């Protein structure tokens, strides 16, 4: 059985190490916070916060306290607040150990496309370009294929890029792959999925 959203998030949480400062993107990456367990992880929200807490209880929402997805959140005892220039200073400056992001396409060079579909989606890149250019490690979490069954792990991205040669590891519903010299390397296969299935669902070159 391929992994579901929560299993993918749980697998991504294994990438995070004690003491890390981490930025989680919107969608499945947000779920990663539910699986960090006892690890001492500090979540950054790029609108200006370190130490992001869970959603507030009903009636305790604060319009001055939101995450980068504009959702109401809470603070923790370790929380600090800062302005947007400082926030992206720590991102661009390599202080954030890892970012977990969703993607539309990733290719065998580690190029990432996740912000625009020409003529269809023109919402903007937000902080994604800064994150992939600046953080220590970029972990992509996404389905292996799109809703038409086409591979999202390509030889070459077709959509406008968010960053060039920026992705380190890709966690999909079928398994885990690393971007290495010459293509993608299979690191782990989801239980019940075969190597042939991963290969068939991957357009990118797979190296052994």
């Amino acid at each position, binding site marked *: 059985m391929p992994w579901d959203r929560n299993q993918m998030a749980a697998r991504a949480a294994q990438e995070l190490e004690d003491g890390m400062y981490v930025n989680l993107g919107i969608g499945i990456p947000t779920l990663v916070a539910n699986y960090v367990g006892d690890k001492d992880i500090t979540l950054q929200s790029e609108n200006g916060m370190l130490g992001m807490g869970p959603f507030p209880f009903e009636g305790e*929402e604060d319009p001055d306290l*939101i995450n980068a997805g*504009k959702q109401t959140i809470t603070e923790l005892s370790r929380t600090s607040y800062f*302005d947007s220039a400082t926030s992206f200073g720590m991102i661009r400056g390599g202080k954030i150990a890892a970012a977990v992001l969703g993607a539309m396409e990733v290719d065998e060079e580690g190029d990432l496309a996740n912000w625009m579909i020409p003529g269809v989606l023109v919402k*903007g890149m937000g902080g994604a370009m800064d994150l992939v250019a600046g953080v220590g490690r970029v972990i992509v979490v996404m389905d292996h294929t799109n809703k038409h069954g086409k591979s999202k792990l390509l030889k070459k991205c077709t959509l406008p890029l968010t960053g*060039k040669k920026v992705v380190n590891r890709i966690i999909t519903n079928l398994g885990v792959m690393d971007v290495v010299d010459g293509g993608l390397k299979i690191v782990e296969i989801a239980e019940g999925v075969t190597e042939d299935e991963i290969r068939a669902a991957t357009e990118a070159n797979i190296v052994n």
Partner: protein
Amino acid sequence: MKKVYANAAEALDGLLHDDMFIAAGGFGLCGIPELLLEAIKEAGTQNLTFASNNAGVDDFGIGILLQTKQVKKMISSYVGENAEFMRQYLAGELELEFNPQGTLAERMRAGGAGIPGFYTKTGVGTVIAEGKEHKDFNGETYIMEEGIFADLAIVKAWKADDTGNLVFRKTARNFNVPAATCGKVCVAEVEEIVPRGSLDPDAIHLPGIYVHRIIQGSHEKRIEQRTTRKKEDA
């Protein structure tokens, strides 16, 4: 040095003109200068260029100036929450310059700090880099981005004293600090003007040197995505 004004219209008196460039604070609907935007709508100033991370929603924030067609161009990182924006942009009525969020923040900060250009890795190899100067430092390629120098900055803070020292609250600080610094003139709206001496000098987020006019007002502070958890989840 009188900085405190009675209301938003008075605070903007003499500062607005058609074709001007305004830097605005806020992230989404959080910490936006809602009273000053309303006053700019009332003033009817035309052909505005805004540097602002977002464009509000249809009936709040910069969105109200889109409805009245007062905006010529937006410099933003994300405009996904505004249907009227999309309509005007796709119809060719509105110019849009996408900036990566950190690049936009740094462009404001740089402008306010007298830095006309800087190099960043953000956007290298993407459409953002097209037409920009590329330069290698220590074997890595960077692109040049320019500082923003706006005619006017409008920001929202939590508290001010009458000298313009500002304190923000939680994530409502966001773009307000860099935006405030990059305007020739900065007007701040706050929830409370407190007596001089009552703000801790060690805890001022933006020194009054950057703030020229201040108003106190009551704010709607709308929530864009209300997300909660149940007590039993705790």
